[in-house]
């Protein structure tokens, strides 16, 4: 089944670039014979380019030329141009790109309203063409940031569009949320305006915070340089850096940070691409992790973050991988799931891990976690046989947990700080289609969402009365 990613905006495209690089490498490691198989077809088309330009798709047999199934959208040219000049240039063709020159000026309204209406037809046409080449389109991925103008505004416009054009196809969104020290002043506006769209039109959202990615990358570097790991650590783990070069501490290691998000997407789709004893498809993820339509924000964590030289790890180390998945400093947003309330939890394991390892760890960790009363055993599990490149096993945990609440509350607070003073509003309001009500509706939507999480939190630790069963006349 095909997953179709849309990279929108600078952040989206930078992450996207890492993603396709890693995907190619992952498949190359598994697919030694160079045969175009079912797994490859989730992300890539196989095209005969000998006939010049865009030849017909080849569905079986040897790999000719792989083209990523994707749409790259940016209202500036810088990032997309870089991709087209880099090692991935043959993986994309011009029909998958939608670019402009002037950017969105960090303005959600420019991205959503202005460029949205301007490029709507273009996007729909390219979307349809891309979808035509997929014999089974299972889900869309939107990769974007929330704080800017293009990713945030145009990205959520695309989200709406996808719902209109392909209502049956699941919409997953990977959203990078701005931190408090974000240098874009209007990022709270952009984020909250985008949140309303995510609330209403996304099936699943995976929020990411740069702060968390930054801490994780630092942690890895620390462990490598301290030699604490004892055995030799492979430098070319795909989590840390594509080039293998260490970044200085002063520069923000965006490449490494983007790699983490790219790995998230790779792991999320691994069980749909590769075989295993208990497969987990993307539509199973939204089915099991979204008990009520609006509560679709999933906190993610990836473990282990480094490779070890010895591949035959005894169970003890395996168990550590599970423990880490629930620790606060492995989450991809600033959140602590252990001390909040779980509505549902998914564990997708890759590599040489069997069902007994999974069960043992669930039994072990369960007592320290709080689950909502109507879902005490709310675990969804998957076992994929193929580990990520450079690892013998890995774990992706997805939690529908009230620990997302603080992120949203902070966002709301930052929004209100600006909004009360009507700071910068005029930049938005003079865009055709924007009105004050857009803002009030957006903050209202966010407040309602926070309230839903509050209500759930209120049930935590409370007395548990199971509803009485149906009585049958004997």
């Amino acid at each position, binding site marked *: 089944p095909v997953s179709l990613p849309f990279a929108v905006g600078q952040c989206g495209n930078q992450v996207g670039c890492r993603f396709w690089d890693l995907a190619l490498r992952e498949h190359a490691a598994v697919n030694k014979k160079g045969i175009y198989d079912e797994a490859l077809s989730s992300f890539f088309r196989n095209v005969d380019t000998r006939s010049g330009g865009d030849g017909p798709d080849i569905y079986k047999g040897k790999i000719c030329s792989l083209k990523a199934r994707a749409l790259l959208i940016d209202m500036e040219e810088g990032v997309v141009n870089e991709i087209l000049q880099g090692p991935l240039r043959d993986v994309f063709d011009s029909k998958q790109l939608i670019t402009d020159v002037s950017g969105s000026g960090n303005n959600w309204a420019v991205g959503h309203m202005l460029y949205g209406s301007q490029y709507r037809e273009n996007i729909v046409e390219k979307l349809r063409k891309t979808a035509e080449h997929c*014999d*089974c389109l299972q889900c869309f991925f939107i990769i974007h940031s929330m704080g800017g103008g293009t990713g945030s505004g145009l990205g959520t416009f695309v989200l709406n569009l996808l719902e209109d054009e392909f209502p049956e196809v699941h919409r997953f969104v990977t959203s990078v949320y701005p931190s408090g020290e974000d240098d874009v002043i209007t990022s709270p506006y952009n984020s909250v305006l985008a949140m309303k769209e995510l609330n209403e039109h996304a099936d699943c959202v995976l929020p990411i915070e740069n702060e968390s990615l930054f801490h994780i990358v630092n942690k890895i570097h620390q462990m490598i340089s301290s030699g604490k790991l004892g055995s030799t650590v492979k430098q070319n783990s795909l989590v840390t850096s594509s080039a293998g070069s260490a970044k200085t501490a002063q520069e923000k290691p965006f490449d490494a940070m983007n790699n983490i998000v790219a790995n998230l997407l790779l792991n999320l789709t691994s069980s749909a691409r590769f075989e295993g004893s208990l497969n987990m498809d993307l539509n*199973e993820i939204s089915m*099991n992790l*979204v008990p009520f339509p609006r509560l679709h924000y999933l906190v993610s964590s990836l473990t282990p973050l480094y490779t070890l030289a010895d591949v035959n790890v005894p169970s003890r180390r395996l168990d550590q991988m599970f423990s880490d998945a629930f620790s606060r400093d492995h989450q991809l947003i600033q959140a602590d799931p252990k001390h909040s309330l779980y509505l549902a939890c998914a564990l997708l394991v890759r590599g040489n891990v069997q069902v007994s390892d999974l069960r043992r760890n669930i039994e072990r960790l369960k007592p320290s976690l709080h689950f909502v009363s109507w879902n005490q055993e709310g675990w969804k599990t998957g076992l994929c046989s193929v580990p990520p490149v450079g690892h013998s096993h890995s774990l992706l945990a997805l939690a529908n947990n009230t620990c997302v609440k603080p992120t949203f509350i902070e966002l709301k607070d930052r929004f209100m700080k600006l909004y009360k003073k009507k700071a910068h509003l005029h930049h938005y309001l003079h865009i055709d289609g924007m009105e004050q009500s857009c803002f009030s509706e957006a903050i209202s939507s966010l407040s309602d969402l926070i309230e839903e999480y509050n209500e759930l939190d209120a049930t935590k630790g409370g007395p548990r009365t199971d509803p009485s*069963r149906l009585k*049958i006349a*004997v």
Partner: protein
Amino acid sequence: MSIVTVQLGQCGNQIGHEVFNAICSDVHGTHGLCSKKENESYRDACKERFFCEEESGVPVARAVLVDMEPKVISQTLSMAARSGYWKYNDQSHFCQKQGSGNNWANGYSAHGPRHKEVIMNLVQKEAEKCDRLGGFFTIMSMAGGTGSGLGAFVTQCLRDAFPTSFILNHVIWPYGTGEVIVQNYNSVLTLSHLYQSSDALLVHENDVIHKICAQLMNIKQISFRDVNQVIAHQLGSVFQPTYTAESGLHYSRNPLGDLMETLVPHPEFKMLALRNIPQMPENSLAYSTFSWPGLIKHLRQMLIANAKMEEGIDWQVRPPPLGSSIPSSHLTNKPVHFNTSIANLVILRGKDTHSVDLGSFRDPSLYTSWLNPQDAFHAWKTPRAFNKYEKSASLVSNSQFLLKPLDNVVGKAWNMFASKAYIHQYTKFGIEEEDFLDSFTALEQVISSYTTL
């Protein structure tokens, strides 16, 4: 008579493959411990039931493989072919690409009707290949979306298309601590629907088989493959040829019919559990000897005390004296749950089966009062040893074995239903709250019936 197996979903296909493997390896094994003539009879009877011959000489399983995603079927087909001993028919499978998303409603209301014709055509083809059709054996899990939802739909279609054929559903119950979060919803919907179209449900619980793997088979890192192989062994011990009292000097030719006749006297009671003894790692077999009296004694106590396997049996439980309705523990005199049976079937394979005393199973105090004791208990035998076990005994039981597990599943599902969690995922495909209520009602009825045995 031949049985057509329908493998549904990932679980159904993975298990089906292990079942045909187990059956084939048993037939080709040299451990039969019987005469050449006996062995040939056994082999021929087995072949008739499960395989048909092709020009190549490699037996072809009488099976239809159905899944809504392609990976498992493709693996299953190639693994079987690689064995060299048997294979599946290249045409007898149907799959789609997108899966059912663990959504029973998707399997039942969307995939079902959409693919009914293609699937039933495949089944029809297999049925026509049989000289005489002995019925259908479907394998599915009830936790996911395809096996459960599409499986329920296909079972209904089988019943409609073959109104007089026997249908036995082999249903896998998931681990209690979730494999799938909505597994209890899917289970309730599956069981209530199967109850309407199926003749009997033969159940295996993952938790139980897992314990067998851990404690009896001594497997350290248990995989689903290990679990499936134990299940396949247990199924093989039931479905490999035997002599029934009626079949006389020939291996019985109607296993499904015989099973239904002996175990399902009333349509309200269709839940069958399976116990098999002994179970041990293959490399310990050579060093172990068993006596029939010992095996029978353990098997009987497993039945009475509701034991999941031959270790940890509660020997304090005794059947209530005839006439009294309150069973009590011999020592402590407090009421203990005693497993009342409607009907039981014991299957004995291997050395000296002719001399085994099964009187303890005919004890009327084990059974409800509505059947004559001689109708409530049956034994099938064969001197031909099964799967390297010198002696092997299986119990297929229509009793209260599954009462507590069923009650647990319904309870958890009801608890979730009260909060309306996940319901929107089902209504999207046309399964409404009323449909859920109907299913709950049907199962509470089954629970009530089994409770008041």
